[in-house]
């Protein structure tokens, strides 16, 4: 009885416009999975979905941080580069300087957060365009990464190798440590966005920064903090990536920022800010991963179709967002 009532409440709640935004990516993911399951044998196995999480854990963590930035109406193009920098720095500290992985990881997390905070400070203090500042940040991070090491550095520290091989059983499949961390980050992100004043300030700034300021919300510190958060998530994603690849390389995660942005947009977050859900980003990442899996399962289409498919999806969602934005002002227009 209780289950029925909660389902009814959920559906009733889902009719609310803002839940609709979540329903679309969720629905799309389920639809794609079902259709794929019909065409390709073995697609609907639990491990396939677990692999989605394992293979895209780093993208998911990054995208969660990026969601917050985009919600304020900004953007962070440095995420892929910070991931690369994190992997290289970790690898160099562990392999060439004999640091313990945990110490290296702490340094990397601090660095990522610091870089993000610096970019946020420039953006906020001097009213600079986030696009160009974070693009320069991307250059800086990639450059620093290549300065540390031009070649790939393999990681063979026993701690890292051990953690990388851990498999945690869950619902008939097994997840890696990275995938679990990603799920925890998503959960933390949902809590942060929905239940803390920081999260609500993020939404307010995305809706109308002047109003947010007039309402007494801490706009300046919130802006700096979202970029710091994005930097932290990128660094954490770099840690997970280093575990996944067991190497540090300055050319890792090339072009990842675009995938992350695509995941956030497909997940229902408006690029102009103010509307979206962290949970939506989860489905955005899963959809991207599913596209790649479907193409791999098919075997006939070249993997280049992934880029085109993502581009088309992005176009569709941006057009949809544009239509939504055009209709909304008519309601409250003066």
């Amino acid at each position: 009885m209780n289950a029925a009532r909660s389902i009814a409440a959920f559906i009733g709640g889902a009719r609310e416009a803002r839940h609709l935004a979540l329903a679309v990516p969720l629905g799309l993911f389920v639809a794609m999975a079902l259709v794929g399951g019909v065409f390709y044998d073995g697609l609907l196995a639990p491990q396939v979905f677990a692999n989605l999480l394992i293979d895209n854990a780093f993208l998911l963590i990054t995208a969660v941080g990026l969601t917050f930035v985009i919600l304020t109406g900004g953007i962070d193009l440095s995420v892929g580069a910070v991931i690369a920098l994190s992997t290289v720095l970790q690898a160099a500290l562990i392999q060439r300087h004999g640091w313990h992985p945990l110490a290296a990881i702490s340094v990397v997390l601090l660095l990522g957060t610091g870089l993000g905070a610096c970019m946020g400070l420039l953006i906020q203090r001097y009213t600079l365009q986030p696009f160009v500042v974070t693009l320069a940040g991307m250059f800086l991070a990639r450059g620093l990464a290549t300065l540390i090491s031009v070649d790939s550095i393999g990681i063979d520290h026993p701690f890292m190798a051990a953690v990388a091989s851990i498999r945690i059983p869950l619902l008939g499949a097994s997840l890696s440590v990275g995938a679990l961390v990603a799920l925890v980050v998503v959960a933390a992100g949902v809590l942060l966005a929905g239940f803390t004043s920081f999260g609500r300030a993020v939404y307010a700034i995305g809706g109308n920064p002047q109003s947010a300021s007039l309402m007494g919300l801490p706009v300046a510190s919130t802006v700096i903090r979202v970029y710091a958060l994005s930097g932290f998530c990128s660094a954490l994603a770099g840690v997970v990536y280093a575990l996944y690849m067991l190497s540090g390389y300055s050319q890792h995660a090339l072009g990842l920022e675009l995938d992350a942005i695509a995941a956030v947009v497909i997940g229902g977050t408006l690029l102009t800010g103010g509307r979206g859900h962290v949970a939506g980003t989860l489905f955005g990442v899963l959809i991207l991963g599913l596209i790649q899996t479907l193409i791999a399962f098919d075997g006939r289409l070249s993997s280049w179709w992934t880029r085109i498919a993502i581009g088309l999806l992005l176009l569709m969602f941006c057009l949809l967002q544009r239509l939504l934005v055009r209709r909304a002002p008519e309601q409250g227009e003066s």
Partner: protein
Amino acid sequence: MVPVSTSFATQPWLRRFVAQPLFWPLLTLALLLLGNGVFNPGFLALHWRDGHLYGNLIDIGNRAAPLILVSLGMTLVIAVRGLDISVGAVLALTATVAAWTLTQVQAAHAGSNLLPLAWAIVAALTVAALCGLWNGLLVVKVGMQPIVATLILMVAGRGVAQLISGGQIITVYCAPYGFLANGFLLGLPFPLYVVATVFVGLQWLLRHSALGLFTSAIGHNPIAAKVAGVRAGAIILATYIFCGLSAGMAGVLVSANVDSADANNAGQLFELDAILAVSIGGSLLSGGRFSLAGSLIGALILQTMTSTIYAVGLPPQLNLVVKAVLVFVVMVLQSADFRSQVRAWLPWVRKGEQT
């Protein structure tokens, strides 16, 4: 009304000289080149050999040609408050289309070189213009933010290029094609002529038609421009088409340079280089004030930097870091908030400026 000061720093002629828009970019380029000349004897030397002019300076100009072209296109887009981050992808796409078309036509008309070349260039530039049109329509008709609109092509464009090339590098065997990038005309590399033609043509167009005035007006104050009767939509669309074309020309030059097209790597991070060249050249990233000559100098500065780093023996990776720092510095300097902060610290900087 303006207080007259007798100190050197506020002499009117000095102020006017420094206030020339091209002063800082030219100074930077001159310093870079001179610095090279001092620390690296023979850097600035030019030799005439085999009927061609050789030297580092020629080299810099030659290598900078693709970036200069794209920067010119980007300048106009930024001038009307837009942005085009798909230029790198369009470059890769046109390079691929050019190489593919050339090999296809060559296969059909065995032995001929000029027909495939013509087809390749036509196909490449048409595709490039269509990409620009696509971006422009999304911005003007659909009303998308420029970053968003051009992001789509940035993601998908490379995918289409990879599709055409099958992920492989397409190699071109066509001597006239290679001439486009490596050949010499009257002693100078051919790309320099391409750049000169485009630059001069564009300057002429902007100065001898009303387009220059309209572009500035739209960028500075789109509403007032509209009230004054300026049709912004058509002009903005034209800037995106031209930007696409410039990326297309750059794509042809890049692939001609290596007689191949690499859809995966061509034009990577090119958009940032272009934006950087534009802002170093003095154009405002917020639109309105722009300088084609400035962007050309900006692109030359970037190329000189790259060559300097290479010549001095510093790790080429430093390039990225230096570029990043440059972008930060230029942006902060251009920021109005920063300038009011500086004015608060240094009252003598006020110099009679009116707010």
